[in-house]
């Protein structure tokens, strides 16, 4: 195990291999981050690089600037200022000197590092016929640390299981950004795939459409995260197309995917439903109303497709299960938030 592999939170005993992230950063930034204490890393959610502005960490309780010696400061003076060369070198390292092979990801404004860590990118957008063709002069990066937390789904899984039929309900996990949707989804997939003997639930075949390589953190198609023995993964595949491919070829009992949001996703979900496949998905949002106002999701919700809608929030910390709704009756199934 890498010398920089750290216990994540020290509670669940899962490691975060920092080396995977550090090797993709320009040397000056790498050296600063190496000086950060181990216990601080357990709380880090994002690393923020903005050209000509201070290097920042986003922690569970807020953000802070980083000094050249790795020390934290609440104000900008004395912080390390990220240079243009740092940005260029970091992008070169992240892309393996092959930006051209990440054209589609750059067009969508993100890259995924080994380990499933997603890097959001901003900079100068080049348009072609009114659509984004590519992103050049990358001047902002948001490195989101992906964490695998086995057991994080324990609180949610009883609400998803249809024990009579040994299957799950069509379920949608909803939270604002950084609410823990993907982490929960990953663990739910793992549990559904392995089965849960304590609840008398046998494992199901799960098909995962991992458009942004965040769920399974695939390297050359091989998942680095444990998604269970009955899970098939389409890595880097558009959601709608991927769902159809899985239904046609892999006979899944459950299809799982991250971040619904396009019109064609709704269509593909409809197809999966008619094929008798259960759907487990996530979406950005903070309330039922906010979901209904999103045109791409309104149609799905109006159709009453999802039988369980789970809301995550921050009331008891990141990943708190705030509410669970029965999608058919719109009644709440959870009395108090759970963490």
């Amino acid at each position: 195990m890498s010398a920089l592999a750290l216990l994540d939170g020290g509670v669940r005993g899962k490691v975060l291999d920092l080396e995977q992230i550090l090797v993709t950063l320009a040397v000056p930034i790498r050296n600063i981050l190496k000086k950060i204490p181990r216990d601080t890393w357990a709380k880090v959610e994002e690393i923020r690089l903005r050209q000509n502005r201070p290097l920042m960490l986003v922690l569970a309780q807020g953000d802070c600037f980083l000094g050249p010696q790795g020390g934290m400061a609440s104000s900008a003076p004395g912080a390390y200022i990220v240079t243009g060369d740092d940005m260029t070198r970091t992008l070169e390292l992240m892309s393996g000197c092959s930006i051209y092979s990440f054209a589609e990801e750059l067009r969508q404004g993100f890259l995924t590092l080994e380990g499933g860590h997603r890097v959001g990118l901003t900079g100068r957008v080049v348009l072609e016929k009114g659509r984004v063709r590519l992103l050049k002069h990358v001047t902002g990066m948001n490195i989101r640390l992906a964490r695998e937390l086995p057991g994080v789904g324990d609180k949610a899984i009883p609400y998803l299981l249809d024990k009579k039929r040994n299957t799950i309900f069509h379920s949608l996990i909803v939270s604002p950004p950084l609410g823990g949707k993907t982490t929960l989804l990953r663990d739910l997939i793992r549990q559904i795939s392995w089965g849960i003997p304590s609840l008398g639930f046998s494992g199901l075949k799960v098909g995962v459409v991992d458009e942004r390589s965040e769920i399974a953190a695939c390297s050359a198609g091989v998942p680095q995260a444990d998604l269970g023995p009955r899970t098939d993964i389409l890595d880097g595949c558009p959601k709608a197309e991927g769902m159809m491919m899985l239904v046609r070829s892999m006979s899944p009992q459950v299809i799982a995917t991250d971040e619904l949001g396009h019109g064609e996703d709704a269509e593909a979900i409809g197809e999966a439903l008619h094929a008798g496949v259960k759907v487990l998905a996530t979406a950005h949002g903070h309330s039922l109303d906010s979901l209904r106002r999103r045109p791409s999701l309104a149609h799905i919700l109006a159709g009453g497709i999802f039988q369980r809608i789970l809301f995550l929030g921050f009331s008891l910390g990141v990943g708190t299960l705030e509410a669970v709704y029965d999608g058919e009756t719109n009644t709440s199934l959870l009395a108090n938030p759970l963490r």
Partner: protein
Amino acid sequence: MLKFTGAILVIVVCGLLGNDIARGYAQRPRLLRSLQTALQFLQTEINYGVTPLLAALKKVAALTDPQLAAFFLLVRDQLLLSQSLSFREAWERGLKDLGRYSVLGPRELELLLPLGGILGCSDREDQVKHLLLTCQQLKEAEMRERERSGPNERLWRYLGFLLGVMLILTFY
């Protein structure tokens, strides 16, 4: 007897030197041709295979002239071994090395230098444009070398021996 042996030695050494220079003239256009083929292959890997650059360099090395293969592999190995070297730095180091062990001169190497700041840094379309431009420049350099190499090669092949003979006549 000693004088005679010395004279033969001088002639042979001068002849070999002349031959070596002549071989350089003959090899340069051939190497420039191979370089164009290698860059065209690299272009195909980037444009159609969307192969990551380090893997593409390895593929190109397997199909090209041994001297050029060593250059491409050196650039790749430096990047794999060092986590801090930029592609431009690795490329420049590779070119410096190529200049030492191949017949390519500073003028030819200069044509390759800009690729260090371009390869891998942009979209496929841009990569292809730059590689085509470099190939075009290398083609022109190859034509120039071909025009020069014929007479120069013959000249140096004889000139070496003649120089040896002249030295003998002058000093013996």
